[in-house]
């Protein structure tokens, strides 16, 4: 088949059957150099524009190019698209695109029985089979009998498709991810136009690459059209989401946009001091693109300097932010304590990954919760908030900023790798209706003709922010304990007791300024499933499923981890059972038990992967029916 004979405009044969389905889970899997993240992202974007609800789970190795053909080198991208409101990227895939034997081997366990396998058949040759640990080809030995297997000569067809485009050498086969994308787009009736536009703008400076990718995309699509095997296709209608305007967004992008929005809402220039670290770097990349918003991104020499520069910028009157992941948060700890002592506003974003140490840099974990709360020397309280999904990241970022500015305190905002890299539709907010979170710099002396830095607002206990350049308000801040009002160094014992208590009460008092915890409660429910962070989707989806069987359950999700919402204790006391699913060894459970003396149960997974809905569902059933 050649691109010349079958184009996108070829009339659709009469025997094409289109089946309406409500959702599908597709996993693109290949070598980390095969471009599976791109194929998945493009399919997601096309589905988003089409109006489906969706949720994605990229999964890739930390190595940029792990040895080709091996299982450690496999990279995958799972997307669930649906015509209804979904909350997760799904558990088991319906369709697996396997670009080589290793990709098949690593991902087959997550394919549902009877699922579809689209195999790049030329890659299933002796050397690749051996690298993946297959003695015989699974395409031939009958081991895939429980699945619907489609063997596609993707490499030959890609070569043929690109032969007149001018690409040569290694670039010829680079386009095969677009072939796979084209074929999947055919099977699920996705239009190609948006991806073609994207390719043409992305590769505008390399027209031969653009031409090759478009040719491969079309060739994949046309292969489906002309091959009888694919004459049964599927359609997923647009989802009935609440009316409004949507875009598809990852958590890191939403966080970056949230910071820009917060900067506007606070009328302060944004300063982002950071050091590259997976999986937080994309926040830096996104912000660095938007200097026309007055954003200063500062790539420091290390994590300590990233937060140090941010503290300097806060003193100087900017909206100061630092972003990192676990190992970097450890390095920033001492400087965050300084900001607590100097009572300067600072937003610290921790995009959590699996630890300890380097751990699994590209995999999810929620294991920095206790570190965020307690990972500092001395009595050093600060507010901790957590995004619950990619689409929540925008709003919670603005909220973290509001608290930092209003209470003159560092705030830790927790995200994680699943939120950071996963995407879902986000209903766009009215940018003209953002909350006003601005604070006024002091311009006049506040005590007998002079400025005393630690005079507090009695309501918030926040001190007043006076910035360099303001005549008459010259002052010194430092890490030494200071007098409760005047701010001069003080070694007085009772003053230290008072200052420690003031710092503590300032943070506790924020509980009066945040929303109460909302509970999604069924009449008769005895079990409360309490979550925080990225378990939101899995918990909500699991509750939906058990409710279909008439089983009562309650769920609640914490976005504020310190201080807790004021009604949390009362909520906990209403339930006989409390289940806390976490992607850690039980950190929130420990807090809940310590603070409220309730017998909270843990449900814990630390595999570098988010919960599957079925895992939470089964656990809920086990408790509710026991």
């Amino acid at each position: 088949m050649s691109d010349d004979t079958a184009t996108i405009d070829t009339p659709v044969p009469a025997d094409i059957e289109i089946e309406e389905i409500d959702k599908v889970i597709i996993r693109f899997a290949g070598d980390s150099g095969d471009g599976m993240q791109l194929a998945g992202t493009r399919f997601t974007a096309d589905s988003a524009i089409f109006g489906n609800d969706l949720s994605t789970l990229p999964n890739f190795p930390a190595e940029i190019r792990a040895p080709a053909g091996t299982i450690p080198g496999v990279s995958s991208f799972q997307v669930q698209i649906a015509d209804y409101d979904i909350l997760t990227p799904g558990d088991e895939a319906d369709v697996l695109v396997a670009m080589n034997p290793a990709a098949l081997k690593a991902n087959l366990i997550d394919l549902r029985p009877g699922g579809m396998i689209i195999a790049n058949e030329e890659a299933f040759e002796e050397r690749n089979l051996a690298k993946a640990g297959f003695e015989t080809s699974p395409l031939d030995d009958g081991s895939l009998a429980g699945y619907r297997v489609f063997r596609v000569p993707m490499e030959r067809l890609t070569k043929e498709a690109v032969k007149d485009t001018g690409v040569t050498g290694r670039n010829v086969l680079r386009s095969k991810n677009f072939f796979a994308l084209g074929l999947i787009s055919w099977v699920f009736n996705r239009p190609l136009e948006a991806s073609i536009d994207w390719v043409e703008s992305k590769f505008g400076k390399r027209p031969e690459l653009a031409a090759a990718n478009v040719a491969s995309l079309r060739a994949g699509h046309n292969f489906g059209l002309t091959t009888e095997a694919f004459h049964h296709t599927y359609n997923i209608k647009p989802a009935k989401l609440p009316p409004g305007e949507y875009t598809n967004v990852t958590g890191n992008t939403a966080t970056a946009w949230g910071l820009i929005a917060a900067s506007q809402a606070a009328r302060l220039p944004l300063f982002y001091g950071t050091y590259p670290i997976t999986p937080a770097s994309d926040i830096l990349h996104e912000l660095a693109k938007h200097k026309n918003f007055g954003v200063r991104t500062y790539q420091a020499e290390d994590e300590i300097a990233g937060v140090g520069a941010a503290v300097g910028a806060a003193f100087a009157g900017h909206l100061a932010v630092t972003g990192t992941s676990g190992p970097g948060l450890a390095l920033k700890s001492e400087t965050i304590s300084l900001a607590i002592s100097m009572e300067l506003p600072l937003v610290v974003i921790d995009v959590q990954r699996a630890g300890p140490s380097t751990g699994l840099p590209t995999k999810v974990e929620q294991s920095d919760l206790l570190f965020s709360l307690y990972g500092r020397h001395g009595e050093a309280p600060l507010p901790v908030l957590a995004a619950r999904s990619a689409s929540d990241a925008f709003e919670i970022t603005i909220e973290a900023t509001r608290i930092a500015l209003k209470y003159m305190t560092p705030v830790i905002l927790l995200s994680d790798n699943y939120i950071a890299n996963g995407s879902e539709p986000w209903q766009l907010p009215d940018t003209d209706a953002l909350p006003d979170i601005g604070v006024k710099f002091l311009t006049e002396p506040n005590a007998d003709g002079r400025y005393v830095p630690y005079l507090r607002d009695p309501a918030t206990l926040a001190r007043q922010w006076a910035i360099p350049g303001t005549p008459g308000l010259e002052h010194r801040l430092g890490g030494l304990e200071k007098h409760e009002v005047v701010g001069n160094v003080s070694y007085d014992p009772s003053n230290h007791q008072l200052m420690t208590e003031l710092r503590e009460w300032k943070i506790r008092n924020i509980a009066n300024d945040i929303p109460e915890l909302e509970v999604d409660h069924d009449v008769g429910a005895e079990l409360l499933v309490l979550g925080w962070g990225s378990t939101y989707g899995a918990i909500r989806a699991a509750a939906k499923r058990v409710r279909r069987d008439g089983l009562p359950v309650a769920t609640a999700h914490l976005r504020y981890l310190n201080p807790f919402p004021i009604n949390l204790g009362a909520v906990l006391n209403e339930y006989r059972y409390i289940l806390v699913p976490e992607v850690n060894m039980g950190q929130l459970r420990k807090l809940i038990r310590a603070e409220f003396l309730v017998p909270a149960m843990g449900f814990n997974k630390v595999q570098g992967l988010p919960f599957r809905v079925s895992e939470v569902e089964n656990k809920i059933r086990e408790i509710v029916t026991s």
Partner: protein
Amino acid sequence: MTDTITTNYTRADFQTDQEVRWCPGCGDYTILAAVQTFMADLGLPKEQMVFVSGIGCSSRFPYYMNTYGLHSIHGRAPAIASGIAVARPDLSVWVVTGDGDALSIGGNHLIHALRRNMNLKILLFNNQIYGLTKGQYSPTSEKGKRTKSSPAGSPDAPFNPVSLALGAEATFVARTIDMDRKHTVEVLQAAHEHKGTSFIEVYQNCNVFNDKAFIELTGKETRLENRINLEHGQPVIFGPEGENAVVLEDGAARIVPTDSVAAGDILVHDAHAPDPSAAFALSRLSHGPYGPTPIGVFRDVARSTYEQDVKQQLVDAQEQKGAGDLSKLIRSMGAWTVE
């Protein structure tokens, strides 16, 4: 930052109500007096000045300067000051640090602050000892030095701070001595006028834990013999009668009797030379204040400053794309409407 003189200050305007708590006789007192006097004479509005320090004896400095100031954490002053300088190019930002603070725990921040060439003026008080922690050897202590933490002699080879700064792409590098207030003020002035990071090593006597460390440069009998004054455009000649001179041989600086070489062969100091090799060679004449030691401005060259480059990027981005529009930004990756 504006250089317009707007105020008539005296030294008292820069003193705070805080009791100065260095040990009596500490070299820090003379440096503080020199800086306060210099600032008063400079006439820059004091609200535009920020002093940032780390931890150590020298780092108490900001508490005694009636300007904006931060007494931060050990080693991090250059990092924190960098944030101030990038955020606020209108301010005059000074870093006060010591040999332990800047060269040990904070070594990384120091070299990066130097290479970036921000509007930071870094004063490194080098007393070759840890004073605040009561007398351990520091990264500038001589090898073999006996201290509480090195009773058998320090096994560490010391840094030469001027060589280090030159190697870190610093655009302004100088050395002065606490006892020489006039020279200190001259160097402060030159550092202030320099656009970008200025690095000043101040030899500072710790009379409690390392007294007379600089006696060869400050003592009546020896100072004329040992002090090599560097002046831009002048041949490098020193000694009570100018009897010694510095020549460059195969890239290395060497001290020779002045009358043993032709006048034209004596090194003429060029602080503005784009290539730092001659300045580096001068810095290698002494490794600590033992014997003939160059004092003055080693290097003072022009290079664009970090914060101005950053500011220009913001201006360029606004010119090219217009002022940021949040509503457009959140629709920039494609949006769709659900009716």
